[in-house]
Every structure is written in structure tokens, then in C-alpha cells.
């Protein structure tokens, strides 16, 4: 059996985690405003296909990322209009978004599997990535990975220390009170939903353009659902979402290495492990009554209809 090099494992872990992290941090903001969007998987996969198609056709990964964001945002807007203006059930609408996104992405991606996306250049000079140990871990990634960490920091700062964050939390805790104070509940929620869509779309585009460098039907394979689970795991706290994403990425990267190394565990058991571990972590988090009850936004998933 081959040994597993810890440094390549850490590098792989960061790459594997990033799509899920991006989707999770977007959904975290959405849920903070009291909206539960179960369409993350659908937005991610649409972002993945649009990002890939645009990157292949224009030769520009940046345009691909932007297209991924735009398509995720467009889909999230359907969800936003339905749940916020037409007051539909958020669970059902989110599911519809996922089912629609899976179909739409497969349709848009016809003929693209096997195409080669343009290479993504790294922001740091190659020499820095060659520094032993810390080089590949800190300097060997594409720009989106650094952006994802910056995004976590930004969300943490905005939610916790700014007026915008306070308004977002107020809307998520008690939309009637926020409305009475004069805040535009629906507008704030729509903006958060679109932010979530853009993040999920970018995550998807990163998955297809950078990580896998190919388009495969259904390639997100539940990453959107894992992102939703991560938000619960994180107790709606941004840095915990990062921790959770890297933990999940670690498990996934490790099981992929173990598969490649031909260890004496059936491949299917290894392939199940990220999902099983996500469930176990969810159980551990939710069994702690005080923690989930204290942190979940009080208005999560409830329909807001201004009567006054």
C-alpha cells in the first residue's frame, strides 16, 4: 500500500472543500435573514454547467466564474419571487429549484462532457509554491480559494459588527418587528437570496472549471445538500462553516486517496463516508438542545406577509 503524503492531502482538502464552503457561506447569510433555500444543489449544478460552458467557449476562466455566479443568482431570483412575493412554501420551492436545476444543467451541458476548460493561473509566483511544506499549502491555489476565505471573514464581520448585519439578523429573528421598525423585509431577503445564489453558482463553477476540469451530469453529487448541513453544523457562525467545510473536504480527500491507494476497504464504503459522516455530525450538533435552539434564526422558513 502506498503511503499518503500529508501535504498533498491538505492541498487536496482545501480544493475539495471550496465549492461546498462557498455554497455554505451564501446559504448561511440567506438563513440569517430567515429564509430556508433548499435549492442550493440546483443553483450549484447550474453554476457548474454555465461556468464550464462559458469558460470553454471564451477561454476565460474569470468569465466562467462570473457566468456561474450570474446563473446561480438568476435561479435564486425565481426562488425569491416565488417565496417572497407569491408566498409559496419555502421547502417545496427549494426542492423545485433543485429538481429544475438538475434538469436544466443536464440540458445546457449536452455535448460538453470531455471538453477542456482553460487553465486557471495562480495568483502567487510559482517559486513561492515551491517552498517546502507551507508553499503548496499557502501559495499553491487559485484565486477563488483565497476569495472564499476572505468571503468568510467578510460575512463574519458584516453579520457581527455592522448595521447591515444587525438588520439582517433582525429580519431573520422577527420579521414582523423588523417590518414595524420600517425595514423592507422582502427586499432584504431577496438580496440575501441572490447573494446565496451567486455564492452557490460560484461554488459550482469552481467545481467544474478548477477542481474537476470537466462537466459531468449531476457532478455536484449532493454538495449543495452538504452545504445546507454545514450551515446547521456551523450553528449559523461563519468561521465554523469554514471549519466544517474543511472537515468534510478532509474526509472526502482522504477517502479518495485511500481508494487510489487500494486499501482493503470496499470502494463503496469509502465513497459513502462523506455522507455518513455529515449525517453523524448533524446528529451530534442537533442533539445539543441549547445550542441549536439558541442559534437558529427564529423566523427561519416562515412566510412573511405584511398586513399593515
Amino acid at each position, binding site marked *: 500500500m502506498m503511503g499518503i503524503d500529508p501535504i498533498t492531502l491538505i492541498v487536496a482538502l482545501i480544493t475539495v472543500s471550496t465549492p461546498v464552503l462557498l455554497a455554505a457561506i451564501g446559504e448561511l447569510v440567506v438563513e440569517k435573514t430567515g429564509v430556508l433555500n433548499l435549492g442550493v444543489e440546483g443553483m450549484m449544478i447550474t453554476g457548474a454547467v454555465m461556468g464550464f460552458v462559458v469558460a470553454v467557449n471564451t477561454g476565460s476562466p474569470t468569465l466562467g466564474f462570473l457566468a456561474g455566479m450570474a446563473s446561480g443568482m438568476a435561479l435564486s431570483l425565481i426562488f425569491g419571487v416565488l417565496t417572497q412575493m*407569491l408566498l409559496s412554501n419555502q421547502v*417545496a420551492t427549494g426542492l423545485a429549484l433543485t*429538481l429544475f436545476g438538475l434538469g436544466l444543467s443536464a440540458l445546457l451541458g449536452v455535448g460538453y462532457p470531455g471538453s477542456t476548460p482553460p487553465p486557471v493561473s495562480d495568483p502567487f509566483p510559482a517559486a513561492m509554491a515551491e517552498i517546502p511544506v507551507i508553499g503548496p499549502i499557502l501559495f499553491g491555489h487559485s484565486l477563488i480559494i483565497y476569495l472564499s476565505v476572505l468571503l468568510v471573514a467578510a460575512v463574519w464581520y458584516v453579520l457581527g459588527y455592522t448595521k447591515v448585519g444587525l438588520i439582517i439578523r433582525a429580519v431573520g429573528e422577527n420579521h414582523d418587528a423588523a417590518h414595524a421598525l420600517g425595514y423592507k423585509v422582502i427586499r432584504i431577503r431577496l438580496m440575501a437570496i441572490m447573494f446565496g445564489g451567486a455564492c452557490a453558482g460560484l461554488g459550482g463553477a469552481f467545481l467544474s472549471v478548477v477542481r474537476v476540469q470537466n462537466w459531468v451530469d449531476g457532478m455536484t453529487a*449532493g454538495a449543495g445538500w452538504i452545504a445546507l448541513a454545514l450551515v446547521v453544523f456551523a450553528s449559523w457562525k461563519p468561521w465554523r462553516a469554514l471549519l466544517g467545510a474543511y472537515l468534510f473536504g478532509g474526509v472526502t480527500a482522504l477517502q479518495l486517496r485511500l481508494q487510489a491507494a487500494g486499501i482493503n476497504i*470496499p470502494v*463503496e464504503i469509502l465513497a*459513502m463516508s462523506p455522507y455518513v459522516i455529515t*449525517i453523524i455530525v448533524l*446528529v451530534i450538533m442537533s*442533539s445539543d438542545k441549547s445550542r441549536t435552539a439558541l442559534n437558529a434564526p427564529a423566523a427561519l422558513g416562515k412566510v412573511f406577509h405584511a398586513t399593515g
Partner: protein
Amino acid sequence: MLRLEKRPAPSRAWTAATPVLAVVLTMIAGGIMFALLGKNPFEAIRIIFWDPLFHESFAAYSRPQLLVKAGPLILIAIGLALGFRAGVWNIGAEGQYIMGAIAGASFGLAFYPSESPLIFPGMIIAGALGGWAWSMIPAILKTRFRTNEILVSLLLVYVAEKFLASAATGFLRNPEGHGFPGSRNLSRIESMNNPELISGTGMHWGIVAAFIAVITAYVLLNKHVLGYQIKLAGQAPRAARFAGVNPNRLIVLCLGMSGALAGLAGLFEVSGPAGQISIDFNVGYGFTAIIVAFLGRLHPIGILLAGLLMALTYIGGELAQLMLQIPAPAIQAFQGMLLFFLLAVDVLSTYRIRVKKEGVA
């Protein structure tokens, strides 16, 4: 300026009309999608909704397929609808469907080559138990640890798919299959076959079970105290608790029923139309059934009609693929669109749209 005014009670007329309206809107939007794909939208819609039933050369093949495809959709959707009504969100029916099929097939194949007439009934029980057991995982985690059943049931679909791969290439692989993945062909083994009961109709035991499920669910919801509790828990959870409804019991029952029905659907599929356990014998009925449940207004009779309509889009979609080279996923997008439109027009049944003049106190 338009504003919404909540109706005291959902409008009955609109509740019945919205699914029809949603179908019409989906046809229009779908037509636009087909036009963008460079196909004649009118022809595409005709091929999907009309030709499978009435075309002189295709209908003979397509008509029986209607029941074959509607059976599992209705069977699964009936179970899901009971849960959705109670506010229990089982969205992992696809996984329960797979596990039911594996459990049922394993039971049958364990007795191979016995020809006992008890094998098929045993497989049916094993199939239901397989789906039920898989749905008990989210049920127990929900009642014991308050873990969100939506996420757990969904994540378990991926686990079930990996387990299916392991079954098809490992413990259920046909020993005489020259090393190819996939089990023995159950539909060719007399004691395990789920045959076409009336030649040329597509009718098999799974469809019989679906009809029984529709009737049972109808009676349950309208005549039985459990049905009353399900409706009460969904509409007024607090009132339900005061009325003595045990929420945990309801969660276990709803998830259990939907799991067992999904497992049954899987078993009937694998012993009949699909024929064998293979890596990808499941085609997403567990997810499409969610659309069927909503399109049928979570009502047993509605689900029966919605299941037939959704089956029609599957068959029509295959036909459109053949005749117009419309890519297969277009139909999946089309089905997703249907749910969107349904949810969008639903506002008409619970709210009244009023025109309000701006600035008038």
C-alpha cells in the same frame, strides 16, 4: 398597486383549478424552451402530451407504458403526501426505493433456484421492510436527536446509491453473468417475476398496489383518526399537541409509511419493468414523486391523476427524443418547471389579489 389579501379559507375552486393552470403555463414555457432548442414548439407539445396516447403507430407501445411509469410514481407520492400533510418532509424516497428493491431482490435470490409460490409474496414483504427500515433512520434521528429529516433522508439517497453499486457488483451479482455487474434477471425467473397481469395494458402488481394505496390513503385521510391527526398536525401543530397528538409517533408513522411504499415501488420495478438490480436501475422516480405529490394537491385522487400526467411526460419525452432529437434532460427541466408554476399559481387559492390605490388611507 396589487396587493395580496389572505382568504379566510383556501378557495376550493382555485385549489382545483391551479394544477390545470400550472400545466397550461408549463406547456407555454416549455414550448418556449423547445423553440430555443430549435424545435417546433407545437409539434413538441403534441408529441409529449397527445401522441403517446393517440398516435396510430406509437400509441400501441406507449399506452401500456403509461401505467408502468405511473405505478411507482403514485405509490411513492401517496406516502410522501401523508408526510407532507403532517409537516414531515421525507425527500429521500429515492433511497428508500433503492433499499426496498435490494431487500426484496436479496430475499428472492437467497432462495434461488427454489420455485416455491411463497417467494414473490416474501419479496414484497422484504421490499416494504427494506424501504421502511431505511426511512426509520431519519425518523429515529428526528425523534431522538431533533436532527432535520430533510437533510438526513436526502443524504441517505447518496448512501443508498453507493450501496446499490456495491450490491450490483458484489453480493447480488449474477454468478453466471460472466463478471458483468447486475443481478440475475428476476423478471425471467418464474418465482420472482412481477408479470404483466393483463396483456397489453402494462398492468402489474405494483400498479394494483398503487390503486390500493390511493384508496387506503383516501379512507385514512377522510375517515380515520390518524388521517385527522395528520391534517391537524400539519395545519396547526400547537393545537394538535393540545389535542393529544403525539408528534413523534406521527413522524415515525409518516416516514415509515412513505418508506415502505417507496420500498414496495422499488421491489415491483426491479422484479418487473427493470428486471434486475443494476447500478442505475433507479431513474429518479423518488424525486419526481415529490412533484406528483404537490401537483396532486397532496390528495389521493389528485395524486392518481398527477401520476398519470407525469408518466405521460416521461413517455412523451422519450418519444420527443426519438422524433425531434430533443435531449432527454429537457423533460426533467420541464417537470421541474411544472412544480415552479404550480407553487407560483398556488397563491391564488390562499390569497385574493386586490388592486389598491397608492396613498389612500
